[in-house]
């Protein structure tokens, strides 16, 4: 807790100079930036793999890669995007924003915070190093089902397992830190129901993380002992069961998808009220809806396993429980729409991303409902329909919210304004290309094209080519995104302390560029109530 106790003499000492600043830092803003940059690099690496996948699928037949390499691409693309890009990006946002939003000087555990970040580059490095090993990188899909990942996988799988352990450690420590910060470091006058929604959704996400990530750690540990130490958790010949792997994996896997979307809900709940210039509609229902989604996420994992020979009673239970999630999610979508209803809306870049989030995420939600229907799912299982579904919720859901948050809070992080014209060009470029990329995949899936296969029959050729063209355009949009970010950091015009007219929240009461240490003196009750979303 050095950061908190050290400045007894002077509340505003700056950061250290040089590279050691970043290695030794315990400052939540530094660590937030580190997380965000790490996630950005991983996004580009994972995106490059997606480009290889789309190039291979541009035409029927084998173009570029061996099937084994193609499988490595799909597997590593998934792993890197989930564990390297989306999750660290949200932890980065949480690090940057949560202390400022609750009037805390820093995170509750600054040194552990440093550790949870610095584990990540090593975990990512170990994961990527498997490409250069004998047998190549993991090629069994990001879900690494046994026995493909135990009996039939190359030796490099043990490195993958170790990387997953490290990633799990990192996110569990991050989650513990956020829970401790939110519950103990809040401004004394801030009640739980005064907390901004991003803080609420991250608090709930943290509970999902400490519930789900250890189960993943358990699953990979069982894999490790099955592979090397003669146990038979997933080996039928020794009395184990490969289906058990899927139960354990999806017991982690389903909460995981809400880990990736709940903070996104929080971000959007900040941006829409700002640019609609109205208080968030149904603040408390938003909180309760997030909590119910989190609870339900633990009891629906079986809907990933409808075709494993599950008995009808089990299928019915998981189907109904899954459908139930549509209720709190619907509450959220309607609340966002009601917030915009009769608001004085303007369409600055963050708002464009947020509105398209609501629209496109809902498309992903609906295809999710279709997949939740047992008889339909048996048709859709492992087709491109599933691929389209989870890319609509993860790319135009989670990633969209990350980009929206970047534009929304960039002025507070840098003290500078990005180029609004370029940012709008970037938005339209991305939103059109992403739909060209993923929408045809619905049709491909309904027509029966299986996922994770490098070649396909001729009838799928047209839609695949359209999808690939959209993919290349969407990939290229990140070049512009990178330019806009660097341009803002280097040449941006100075921003106001509250660059968005309708924005509420304690972070906007700080200097235009938030100083290295903020809220050494907790905000007053009056200020908290003025800036509360719940008013």
């Amino acid at each position, binding site marked *: 807790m050095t950061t908190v106790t050290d400045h*007894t003499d002077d509340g505003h000492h700056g950061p250290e100079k040089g590279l050691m600043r970043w290695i030794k830092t315990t400052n939540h803003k530094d660590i937030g930036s580190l997380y965000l940059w790490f996630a950005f690099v991983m996004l580009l690496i994972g995106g490059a793999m997606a480009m290889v996948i789309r190039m291979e699928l541009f035409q029927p037949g084998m173009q570029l890669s061996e099937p084994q390499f193609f499988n490595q691409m799909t597997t590593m693309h998934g792993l890197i995007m989930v564990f390297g890009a989306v999750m660290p990006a949200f932890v980065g946002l949480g690090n940057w924003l949560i202390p400022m939003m609750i009037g805390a000087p820093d995170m509750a555990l600054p040194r552990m915070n440093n550790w949870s970040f610095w584990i990540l580059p090593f975990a990512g490095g170990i994961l990527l190093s498997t490409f250069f090993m004998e047998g190549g990188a993991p090629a069994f899909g990001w879900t690494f089902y046994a026995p493909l990942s135990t009996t039939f996988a190359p030796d490099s799988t043990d490195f993958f397992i170790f990387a997953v352990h490290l990633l799990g450690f990192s996110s569990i420590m991050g989650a513990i830190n956020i829970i401790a910060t939110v*519950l103990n470091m809040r401004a004394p006058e801030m009640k739980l129901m005064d907390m901004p929604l991003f803080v609420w959704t991250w608090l709930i996400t943290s509970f999902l993380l400490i519930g789900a*990530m*250890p*189960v993943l750690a358990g699953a990979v540990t069982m894999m490790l002992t099955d592979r090397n130490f003669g146990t038979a958790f997933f080996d039928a*010949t020794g009395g184990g069961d490969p289906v058990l792997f899927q139960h354990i994996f999806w017991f982690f896997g389903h909460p995981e998808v809400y880990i990736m979307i709940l903070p996104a809900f929080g971000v959007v709940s900040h941006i829409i009220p700002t640019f609609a210039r109205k208080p968030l509609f149904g603040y408390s229902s938003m909180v309760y809806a997030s909590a119910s989604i989190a609870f339900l996420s633990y009891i629906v994992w079986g809907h990933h396993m409808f075709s494993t020979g*599950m008995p009808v009673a089990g299928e019915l239970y998981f189907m109904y429980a899954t459908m139930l999630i549509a209720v709190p999610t619907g509450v959220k979508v309607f609340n966002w729409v009601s917030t915009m209803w009769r608001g004085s809306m303007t369409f600055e870049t963050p708002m464009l991303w947020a509105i398209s989030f609501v629209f496109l995420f809902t498309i992903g939600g609906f295809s999710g409902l279709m997949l939740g229907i047992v008889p339909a799912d048996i048709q859709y299982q492992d087709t491109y329909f599933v691929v389209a579904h989870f890319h609509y919720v993860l790319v135009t859901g989670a990633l969209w919210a990350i980009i929206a948050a970047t534009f929304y809070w960039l002025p507070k992080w840098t003290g500078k304004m990005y180029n609004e014209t370029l940012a709008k060009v970037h938005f339209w470029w991305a939103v059109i290309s992403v739909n060209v990329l993923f929408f045809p995949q619905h049709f491909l899936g309904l027509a029966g094209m299986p996922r994770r296969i490098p070649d396909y029959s001729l009838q799928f050729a047209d839609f695949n080519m359209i999808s690939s063209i959209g993919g290349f355009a969407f990939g290229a949009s990140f070049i512009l995104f990178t330019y806009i970010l660097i341009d803002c950091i280097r040449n941006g015009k100075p921003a106001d302390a509250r660059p968005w007219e309708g924005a509420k929240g304690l972070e906007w009461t700080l200097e235009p560029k938030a100083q290295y240490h903020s809220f050494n003196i907790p905000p007053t009750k009056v200020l908290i109530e003025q800036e509360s979303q719940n008013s």
Partner: protein
Amino acid sequence: MAEMEGRQKITKKFWIKLVLAPILMFFFAYAMVPIYDVFCEITGFNGRTGRVDSEQVHVVDEMREVEVSFFAMTMGGFPVQFGPKVNSMKVVPGKFYTASYIAKNNTDEIVIGQAVPSVAPTEAALYFKKLECFCFNKQVFKPHEQVEMTLRFVIEPELDERIKDVSLSYNFFKLKS
């Protein structure tokens, strides 16, 4: 520390809870293994068959008949020919029967294998009990030797009256030792 006044202190109890929760969840993943086994045993899900230790006497309805079909599969890399001696037999629930499978090792090496049974429909698995079976132990196949392997089973009369066909399949896996 003047600034920290009024903020809540993090208590030791709170720490213990926070650190304990993920550790407990880690062990929960391991707890899922026996939970899953017990769940499958009670419900018969997953087609697992049960065992009996002796030939208990059941009340037998001689008029009732269930057709049991036998299937055989081998996993890739298992070099032994393996199949049922008869494809199906009609059985009376409550009576014990013996069926057999034939295996022939066509290679010049000793092959060790383990058979894993599965019963469909899963609702029948609960009542399909075996007194003895070659799947209880690993099997050793000597080079170019043909063996007949038996199982003795009963379908308990509690089986749902509507189920007229039950299939039993074995999948042979190669073991290293």
